[in-house]
């Protein structure tokens, strides 16, 4: 029997487990030491594992992911924390030019088993630049994995899988869910599979695809649809890249209808890729146009208006109803 953990506690538990199991796992980032990270995801790790394995870095967002690349080539498994996803942009250089392609460039001679963690997304009344979700920019980088958990148990199992993966993984944590839900998490070191979707709820009439924090509103909408007699299947993508299109195609093959929900801006979003995948390989089973419910193509508004930006249960329901109207 596991404890009922919040998502941030599940992250912390997975980090502790990985560090316990493997002496080469190192945590680094701003304020991850004594302060335990600004969200307390690394709370207690410095006391347990000491300052050589839990390293407070200076404010140097480009350098410390490059540092992790160097460490990784020497047999360490660095886990780099970014305080907020909005401060990860300087990491793009190191991620795109080095971490993601060192294996390829050196024909497997040098590799980068590292994890970059960052809280992402809106909904917590945070200051400017603290609510971003640009997972699609990362998903565009060949050689990278991008993983986003949607619950405490997913966070625990997927983070362990990410840490054990031989390639670089960006692990984005929905900060809106950090403390809002609890779930039983067994700290048994069990990982969940990467590169695979999770079907959270079965249904034969409509497929709803989402990830991260938006799973909450998507599940709520599915509940309402069920009461209306519409069976909505809810798929949690979990690994944004590489995308498990097979699970989505199989589901839409049965339902013929698909609504994609994501918080990030619409243009170039991961939803566009899923829709393209359905057009490529699922066209004959479609009974209605594939629709997307997304953040708008605007700058993420400051918090007074952020709830108008985030896909709401109502917007998801409206899209589902439109999809169901097609005979």
């Amino acid at each position, binding site marked *: 029997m596991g404890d009922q953990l919040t998502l941030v506690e599940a992250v912390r538990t997975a980090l502790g487990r990985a560090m316990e199991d493997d002496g080469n796992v190192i945590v680094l980032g701003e304020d991850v030491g004594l302060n335990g990270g600004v969200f307390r995801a690394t709370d207690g790790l410095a006391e347990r594992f000491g300052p050589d394995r839990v390293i*407070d870095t200076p*404010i140097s967002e480009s350098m410390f992911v490059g540092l992790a690349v160097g460490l990784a080539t020497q047999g360490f498994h660095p886990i780099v924390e970014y305080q907020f996803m909005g*401060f990860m942009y300087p990491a793009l250089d190191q991620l795109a030019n080095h971490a993601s392609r060192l294996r390829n460039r050196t024909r497997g001679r040098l590799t980068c088993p590292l994890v970059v963690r960052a809280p992402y997304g809106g909904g917590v009344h*945070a200051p400017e630049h603290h609510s971003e979700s640009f997972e699609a920019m990362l998903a565009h980088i060949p050689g990278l994995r991008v993983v986003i958990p949607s619950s405490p148990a997913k966070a625990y199992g997927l983070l362990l899988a990410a840490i054990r993966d031989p390639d670089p993984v960006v692990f984005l944590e929905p900060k809106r869910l950090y403390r809002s839900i609890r779930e039983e998490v067994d700290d048994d070191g069990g990982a969940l599979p990467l590169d695979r979707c999770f079907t959270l709820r079965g249904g034969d009439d409509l497929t709803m695809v989402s990830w991260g924090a938006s799973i909450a509103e998507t599940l709520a909408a599915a509940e309402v649809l069920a009461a209306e007699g519409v069976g909505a299947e809810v798929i949690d993508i979990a690994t944004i890249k590489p995308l498990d299109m097979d699970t989505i195609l199989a589901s839409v093959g049965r339902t013929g209808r698909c609504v994609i929900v994501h918080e990030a801006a619409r243009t170039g979003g991961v939803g566009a890729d899923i829709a393209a995948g359905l057009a490529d390989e699922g066209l004959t089973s479609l009974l209605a146009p594939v629709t997307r419910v997304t953040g*708008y*193509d605007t700058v993420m508004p*400051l918090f007074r*208006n952020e709830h108008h930006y985030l896909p709401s249960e*109502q917007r998801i329901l409206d899209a589902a109803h439109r999809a169901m109207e097609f005979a």
Partner: protein
Amino acid sequence: MRHEVASFRIRATSYIGPDGTVASDLPAFASDPEQLIGMYRAMVLTRTFDAKAVALQRTGRLGTFASSLGQEAIAVGIGTAMAPDDVLVPSFREQGAMFLRGVVPNELLLYWGGDERGNDFAGQRHDFPICVPIGTQAAHAVGVALAMQLNHERRVAVCSFGDGATSRGDVYESMNFAGVRQLPVVFVINNNQWAISVPRSAQSAAVTLAQKAIGAGIAGEQVDGNDVIAVRAVLTDAIERARSGGGPMVVEALTYRLTDHTTADDASRYRPDAEVSERWKAEPIARLRDFLVHQGHWAREREEQLIDECAAEIDAAVQDYEGYRPMPPTSMFEHLYATLPHAYLAQRAELHELERLDG
């Protein structure tokens, strides 16, 4: 054969010490009591604003807020040393400087209250807004300074950031280019000894942060950041030097963050209370007040009157702030481009419809 090819010195300036000792060579403005009282007032106003903003956050009426408690002298030194035409490129703890440059308190409340209108300063049209991504604004300051140089203007860009920011490449890269082109820019390092939980000693092995200038080939010096007279004097010299073609400069102002990093932080997790109480003894407002009292320019009645005035000014700002209705949701499409591209009209229309249904 080996010989020394370069060496450097960093000098530090202070006029009024924490123990009340006063240097004999005070700058000229310090002999004008009205100037000093103006600076004193600006510091007290800033502290009043910070205390009120923290209280608003604690009661759910404001978002996360970064107080400048104990660091008021740096902001006020910046604000009094700059000319109106100069351009301030701040970080997020320079409220005292922003007020002196025409930003009003309710604008900053709006910003920290999650409303973009807080960046549209009615009385200050050319300074930059608050910058949250640490150190990134240093490059803007250099760009502003290059424009000033290309336009043969006698103006200066002043850029401030924290001790932690000096670890970022952006900051060094900006200093470096400023040196190459001898640009009219002054970088002010607000060294409050902490970057959230990371102490100054863990940020850099350099003895001073001012010496980061040396690597970029520009001048650097330290100033006592809790001595507002010294901050103003040193910055005035640096700015006037830059204005007359003398090139860029780095000024490291030494101070101490007397409170949490922001309202989202709990400093008791990582630093001892004893360190903080010790640092209270050197805080800048009491220091200037003691000097004014000693000079016979200040008395209890004036102090009480000033406190009342500042409280009234900030209370009025809060009232003003709380009177602002949120912008309509479709405001997120405003000012996105000069003209909203056709491609986004449908999204805006959808949002408008949701807004209408919401009532």
